[in-house]
């Protein structure tokens, strides 16, 4: 190999290429660059298979159910939900926080791992970003429809008006939410789209002349792979990743402030911002795992999403589970240590009161079950990881439910203590949000490269075709 090469390969990459021979390869199966392109583009270029159709039809019908429920609720009233004078939020905000949390893992994988130069993210970052986008869409719907007068939602925006001008209340955490969620949605969308541009160009160049080519030409913005553009592109991508990382922390911090800045015991606590961010990452990881394990099977991406990826994600999930468990314990400690009887009561009531079933579901799913991931065979057993991920999703939903409902149902004055049973409309809306999420996700798999082609190529350090054999020997060794 000529000397020049050594000179231009950065130190970091030297390490990477060195370690890549020690670590299992990120892309298995002796793929050439064209193979990568072909494999990833294949799902969107061939007709969908039966499995896709079944999944799509199920998702779509759930979505329609949700739309009907939301329509009914908007024309009839929030009374179609199981809320009451004491419990003003139930499924709505639980689902909102749940979906925002799901969304966070996408950003985490794509932006945070990018900043940390974790190359294995390339296998999943595209779908994780899409997941973020769709999850934030689902999340955004709930604060919208939870309003008694949804049609006036635009009053939340500070626009000049004829009311003198009456602005908005910048002291309200709910307004912070409006800004946080909309910023998050927009930045996630932009991040996702910017990442997609080179791949759209790849698809465009592969497409035969026709509508498909036209559409991809339109959306690929005239991308031609010039190294000057790549140079700026990389800068902007890094900037976006750099912005998205604090954003994702700020979003869930602000979501947690909806509760933390209130006066309700069980909400009013300073631990919430880190606790919520950890929880969000935890639930997001679980969701990514769930989706990835399905996707690699359904879309034949086993060579790109390898058990190694799954195992690393599992470890991350385990550590997050432990952080969340620590947070649960800390809450009790703080209540006991504060000497505030209202606070003490809320936590005792959570664990032993009428809603203890929800509390213990949450603890079991979020803290106890993930401990299985200490064992390597569990981490490498995909069905087991899948089950654990599902349980963590359930547990994290319950975490929000417990925080919201169990704190509200018994607060200061015993005369107003109450209970909460969700109504059919609420359940249908929740189910509908899953419909929306999966419908969007399935459509996304069909119309855009589900894996970042350019990034996989860039990160995988594929050997020259001629060198293949030697590399294989190395990895086999």
């Amino acid at each position: 190999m000529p000397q020049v090469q050594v000179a231009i390969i950065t130190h970091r990459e030297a390490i990477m290429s060195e370690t890549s021979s020690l670590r299992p390869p990120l892309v298995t199966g002796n793929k050439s660059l064209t193979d990568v392109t072909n494999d990833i583009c294949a799902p969107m270029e061939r007709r969908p298979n039966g499995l896709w159709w079944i999944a799509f039809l199920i998702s779509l019908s759930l979505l329609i159910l949700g739309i009907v429920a939301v329509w009914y609720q908007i024309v009839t009233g929030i009374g179609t939900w199981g809320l009451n004078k004491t419990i003003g939020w139930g499924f709505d905000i639980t689902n909102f926080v749940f979906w925002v949390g799901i969304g966070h893992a996408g950003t985490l994988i794509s932006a945070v791992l990018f900043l940390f130069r974790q190359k294995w993210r390339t296998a999943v970052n595209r779908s994780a970003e899409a997941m973020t986008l769709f999850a934030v869409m689902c999340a955004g719907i709930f604060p919208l429809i939870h309003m008694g007068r949804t049609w006036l939602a635009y009053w939340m925006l500070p626009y000049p008006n004829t009311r003198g001008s009456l602005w908005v209340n910048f002291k309200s955490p709910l307004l912070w939410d409006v800004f946080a969620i909309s910023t998050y949605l927009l930045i996630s969308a932009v991040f996702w789209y910017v990442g997609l541009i080179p791949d759209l160009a790849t698809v465009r160049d592969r497409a035969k002349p026709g509508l498909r080519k036209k559409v991809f030409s339109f959306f690929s913005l005239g991308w031609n792979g010039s190294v000057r553009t790549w140079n700026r592109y990389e800068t902007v991508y890094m900037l976006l990743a750099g912005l998205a990382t604090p954003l994702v922390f700020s979003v869930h911090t602000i979501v947690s402030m909806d509760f933390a800045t209130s006066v309700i015991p069980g909400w009013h606590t300073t631990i919430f911002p880190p606790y919520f961010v950890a929880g969000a990452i935890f639930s997001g990881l679980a969701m990514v795992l769930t989706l990835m394990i399905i996707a690699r099977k359904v879309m034949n991406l086993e060579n790109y999403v390898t058990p190694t990826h799954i195992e690393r994600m599992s470890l991350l999930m385990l550590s997050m589970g432990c952080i969340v468990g620590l947070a649960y314990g800390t809450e009790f400690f703080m209540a006991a240590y504060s000497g505030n009887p209202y606070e003490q009561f809320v936590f005792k009531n959570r664990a032993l009161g009428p809603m203890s079933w929800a509390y213990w579901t949450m603890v079991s799913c979020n803290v106890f079950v993930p401990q299985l991931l200490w064992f390597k065979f569990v981490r490498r057993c995909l069905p087991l990881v899948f089950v654990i991920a599902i349980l963590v999703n359930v547990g994290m939903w319950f975490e929000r439910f417990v925080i919201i409902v169990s704190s509200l149902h018994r607060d200061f004055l015993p005369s107003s203590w109450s209970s909460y049973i969700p109504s059919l409309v609420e359940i249908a809306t929740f189910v509908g949000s899953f419909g929306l999420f999966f419908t969007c996700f399935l459509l996304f798999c069909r119309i855009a490269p589900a894996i970042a082609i350019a990034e996989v190529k860039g990160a995988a350090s594929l050997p020259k075709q001629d060198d293949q054999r030697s590399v294989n020997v190395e990895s086999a060794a």
Partner: protein
Amino acid sequence: MSRRVLLATFSHENDLLNAVAAVRERGIKIVDAYTPYAVHGLERAMGLKHSRLTWVCFICGMVGALGMLAFEHWTAAIAWPINVGGKPWNSLPSDVPVAFEAAVLLAGFGSVFALFAVSRLFPGKSADVIHPNSSDDRFVLVMDESNASFDTASVEAMLKSFDVVETEERILSGAGQS
């Protein structure tokens, strides 16, 4: 203005990197290179300057944050001071979250739109694709032939040593801008 260029196509990023280094050593002017993904080190190998988009991002972010802080203060304490929960008119801590979000939003959009503007990317633009496989598995180096000292044959010979897949001479219209 049109000019003559020599296109060299490679199948591996290392070949391209090595070739770029060699070509620049010979004093040949490189017009551009086209790659299917961001080849790390290529920009340095080609001697491209660091992008100034970070400044755009920073300025947009500052405008977002300071602008929003000023706006929040103006609405709550000056334009129409309204007593909200007994809080002081000018309550800086509660202004921070929205200001932060505004900063991120403006910085993100500012830098992306700056990228699009500087790189002339816009929806519906028809791309001048240099090589049908340049977005798949081919790395294309475009060298300026207009210099009188350019010796096509010797360059091609040199490129051969970097496993060049093919070479082609072409007249490029326009300024050769990417």
